[in-house]
């Protein structure tokens, strides 16, 4: 694996700013994933255990990020709290890809009334503010990682649909698709071998942007209490909690998890920006 990563990195680095954005973004994301993965071994305290120290202690040498109102070590919670976020965002992106891509492809290639209907449905979903809709759906189907992912996925499928649709519509008219028709290719072949490979760049871009968005929405859901049970360490939950405690001056409970969320979202956004720059080349003379 290393043998593919190193040359991959060097070729990215040579691509200028875009390449560096991707490297930076990927580094941030990897850092968070690794950190979360090894947290059971490096966390100084059990993140779920209450009263490992005095409640509401400000950051000090023993509790690097301080403790929250339940006496839990914020540092340990920060190290291990990313798990839910990552799971939810990855799952929701998978669902979006599995549902949004085929729908987008099929609808725009078929055209006509089918396309009109799907567009109507998608536009209606899109019209809702993302978080509000996610909350509504989550409230209906309940809590848990899978349900959270589903709620978020539903909110974002229209974005995928739109992006893919606009790409397909323009590619559909290209001479090379006409040529494929002219040599007798069937619709399925055209979709899979002529259209899909040419929209992959856009899919990759929207997926990475979606990651970032999903994280923030997941945080929002947990914030409201529609996420996961309290016992599992989760940044989103810490945000809710920390907000409450801000007024009493305990700034550290919300700040550190908040920063981590920002980092993770930033990592994905940078990757998305870099990929977008790379895969949709600007006009070159």
């Amino acid at each position, binding site marked *: 694996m290393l043998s593919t990563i190193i040359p991959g990195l060097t070729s990215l680095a040579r691509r200028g700013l875009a390449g560096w954005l991707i490297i930076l973004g990927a580094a941030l994301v990897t850092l968070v994933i690794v950190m979360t993965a090894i947290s059971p071994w490096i966390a100084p305290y059990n993140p779920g255990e209450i009263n490992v120290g005095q409640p509401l202690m400000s950051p000090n040498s023993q509790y690097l990020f301080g403790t929250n109102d339940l006496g839990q070590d914020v540092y340990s919670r920060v190290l291990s709290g990313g798990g839910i976020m990552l799971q939810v965002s990855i799952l929701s992106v998978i669902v979006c890809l599995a549902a949004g891509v085929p729908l987008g492809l099929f609808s725009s290639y078929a055209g006509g009334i089918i396309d009109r209907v799907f567009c109507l449905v998608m536009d209606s979903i899109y019209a809702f503010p993302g978080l509000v809709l996610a909350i509504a759906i989550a409230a209906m189907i309940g809590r848990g990682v899978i349900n959270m992912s589903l709620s978020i996925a539903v909110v974002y499928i229209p974005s995928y649909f739109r992006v893919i649709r606009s790409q397909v519509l323009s590619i559909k008219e290209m001479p090379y698709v*006409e*040529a494929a028709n*002219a*040599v*007798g290719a069937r619709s399925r072949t055209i979709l899979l071998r002529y259209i899909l490979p*040419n929209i992959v760049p856009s899919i990759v871009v929207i997926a990475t942007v979606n990651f970032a968005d999903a994280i923030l929405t997941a945080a929002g859901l947990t914030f409201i209490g529609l996420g996961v049970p309290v016992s599992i360490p989760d940044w989103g939950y810490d945000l809710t909690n920390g907000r409450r405690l801000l007024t009493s001056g305990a700034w550290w409970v919300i700040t550190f998890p908040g920063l981590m969320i920002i980092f993770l979202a930033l990592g994905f956004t940078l990757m998305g920006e870099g990929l977008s720059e790379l895969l949709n080349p600007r006009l070159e003379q």
Partner: protein
Amino acid sequence: MLLVQRRKRKVSQSEIIRVEHLKKYFPVEKSFLERVLARTRSFVKAVDDVDFSVNKGEVFTLAGESGCGKSTTGRLIVRLIPPTSGKVYFNHVDITQMSHEEFRICRRKLQIIFQDPYASLNPRMNIGRAVGHPLEIHGIAKDEEERKRVLEILDRVGLTPPDQFINLYPHQLSGGQRQRAAMARSLILEPEFIVADEPVSMIDVSLRTTIIDLMLELRKELELTYLFITHDLAVAKYISDRIAIMYLGKIVEIGEKQEIFSSPIHPYTQALLSSIPVPNPERKRRAVELKGEVPSAINIPSGCRFHTRCPYAEEKCKRAEPELIAVNPNHSVACQIMER
């Protein structure tokens, strides 16, 4: 309605394509409100009752300016778009009535080359796969056999050494090379008839001749017939055997190349020919002046559709649409004034 002596159409044995009363009307997209308020639907009459035939082995040119319907006609013939009405006969068989599946087999014999070499190749397929794909689609060959045929055809179109080109992607090729690759893709199915839609307009001037000469060579070697579509009459003169001039969806003049260029009859043809720049600083131009500009294909003028711009237009031109009348066996024109 005037009773006009129609030219008796001889169905020549060597006819490979025959087009009869071909029409293509595109409905104009209207908003909901416009549709409610308007009483009739409007159409873009891209091709409006076109008749002609192409003989085996010839280069038949459809010439005219943008919007005259020549590209649409080309696409209709290879059934990339369905006609609104009319028939297309390929080797005396009506292909407009064929089912999708039946025509798929016919497709191999009717191919098309497009104008834009930068857009006619799938950017994600290398040349080998792009050119060989038609063979896979029709189950003719794959793997080793496919590769062999691909190398052969690439060599034929001048992309040599072929094994070097087979792994390249379109963006690594120049415009001229891409056009050759597109030709290879069409030729690998061993077609009989090729529609070439402005194949050299987007290629550098100094390279056009190579592509055109290649097409002519291949015609001899592979026994091809071409429908050549262009707005550049100078190129048309170089390559064609017979030529038809189109205006706003109809053929206004048709005949042997020499006839048309030495004695153009229709005022539009005359205007076109006289407007073409000639690379000679000493030439004195005698351009035929045309009034106004090409009308929209949605609101086609009554009677002879050219009357709005014609320097010789008379009253009767506004009333009746002229038919194509044969002035001599090699030359027909659709004009009430000039055909006398």
